[in-house]
């Protein structure tokens, strides 16, 4: 009897210690992530995603489990004297976000959505909120041309557009204006299956999100239209 009581008390203590340790570690990581500069945050996020991708375990109907990501949504303010400068800033963020997210190589980084993955709305993460303070308006075509004409730092002899489209796609608002906040979003793919997409293809519909993508959308649109389920960052934002 005394032994059982002792064991129960011991287990309770162990659980409390584990929880306390977890909370301590979590708070240290959050504290660390909120204080690091943007470059460090990008590197930590990139490395944590490598761990996440390599530790992902598909456990059948139990779903998928993996190490959580340590990513932070970065808020960057910018102004530009001309269209070219604005385009350069945005294009560099496109490329960086794609690099952070392992060049869109991995399938369903956040796991499937809904029971048996039956939800067609994808999951996503906001890499950057780009606050366009002052500058000329930009069109979708201008930004596309810039993505086409800028050489990639990560893929030799390729443009940033080719670098992204090697495994993914992009989606850009038709018009970009100063005084707006634009979110650069990594949108996860949805795995193709017989009932989804293959069947849809026969009916003339095309797979919507069978690749990872980068979306550049107005933050208001993202909040109102909810085109994807936004994953929270490490600070819970």
């Amino acid at each position, binding site marked *: 009897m005394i032994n059982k009581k002792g064991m129960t008390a011991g287990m309770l203590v162990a659980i409390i210690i584990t929880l306390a340790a977890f909370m301590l570690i979590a708070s240290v990581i959050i504290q660390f992530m909120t204080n690091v500069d943007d470059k460090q945050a990008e590197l930590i996020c990139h490395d944590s995603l490598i761990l996440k991708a390599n530790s992902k375990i598909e456990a059948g109907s139990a779903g998928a489990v993996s190490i959580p990501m340590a990513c932070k949504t970065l808020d960057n303010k910018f102004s530009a004297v001309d269209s070219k400068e604005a385009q350069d800033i945005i294009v560099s963020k496109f490329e960086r976000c794609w690099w952070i997210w392992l060049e869109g*190589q991995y399938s369903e*980084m956040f796991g499937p959505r809904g029971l048996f993955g039956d939800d067609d709305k994808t999951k996503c993460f906001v890499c950057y909120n780009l606050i366009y303070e002052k500058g000329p308006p930009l069109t979708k075509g201008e930004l596309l041309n810039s993505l086409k004409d800028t050489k990639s730092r990560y893929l030799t002899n390729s443009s940033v557009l080719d670098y992204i489209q*090697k495994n993914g796609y992009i989606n850009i608002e038709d018009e970009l204006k100063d005084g707006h906040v634009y979110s650069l979003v990594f949108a996860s793919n949805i795995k193709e299956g017989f009932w989804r997409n293959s069947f849809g293809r026969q009916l003339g519909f095309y797979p919507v999100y069978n690749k990872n993508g980068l979306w550049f959308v107005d933050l208001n649109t993202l909040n109102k239209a909810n085109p994807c389920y936004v994953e929270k960052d490490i600070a819970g934002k």
Partner: protein
Amino acid sequence: MEGVTKIVMYLIPIIMFVLLVMYFFAPSGGVFEKFKDAGGKVKEYLPTIGAEKLQGEKVDVSGEHRGEILSLKNTIENMKGKGPCFARYKQFSDLGEEGVTISLNYNGKGGSDFIVTTGKQIVSDLSFTINEVSPCVIAGGKVVEAFGLHYINDKQWKDKPIITNDYASVNQIIISYSANNFNGNIIRVPELGADIVNGVSNNLKDAGVLYTPDGKNICFFPTVTFGSDKDGLSENYLGVNKGMMAIPRQMEIKRLRVCSE
């Protein structure tokens, strides 16, 4: 004696180490090899570790579609600064198989962005900006009526009545394929809403005809099967039945001015 004990103390772990190495990694197939084999079998029953990788592929369209898209681009380029006149590009074959979409977007800076996608990916070498042009359509009740009065008649070019407002400037035109109701290529104009053009299936039987009233607006022809209406001209006037009123026929016999001449 103490020295001997020390030597033995060192020797025992060394011998143990050598034996273990031989046992596990023997060239004839040590325990490690056997364990590896067994591991391979066990792996089949274990859950997969590591996220699945997606297959990258080159973004491109077929040679046939490439030719048609370039033909459209060149035709538009050649219509710039001319007009009123008509021109023909190589009519699109079924865009369905590859999910090709062509969109022409007025960019607010005097030009239009020409964007070609397959699925959701952009075909970078077929996407470009055409300066000093903006898209238009021959659609909408009054526009179609005015265009018909202006050009769908048996008069010679110089005798065609002068009628204005025979086109509708728009910001965006999308050409793609749809399998809804009737399979075929479709043209869509988002700003016209559900009632005009956008509800009609297989409505790009345009024989590759384009019209410019002024060398700046480049007009596409959404079509309808029977009797011209708000959704566009009857496909008979675009040459499905080669009547004398059909635009391609009128272009051949010089009743309509051809931009390249």
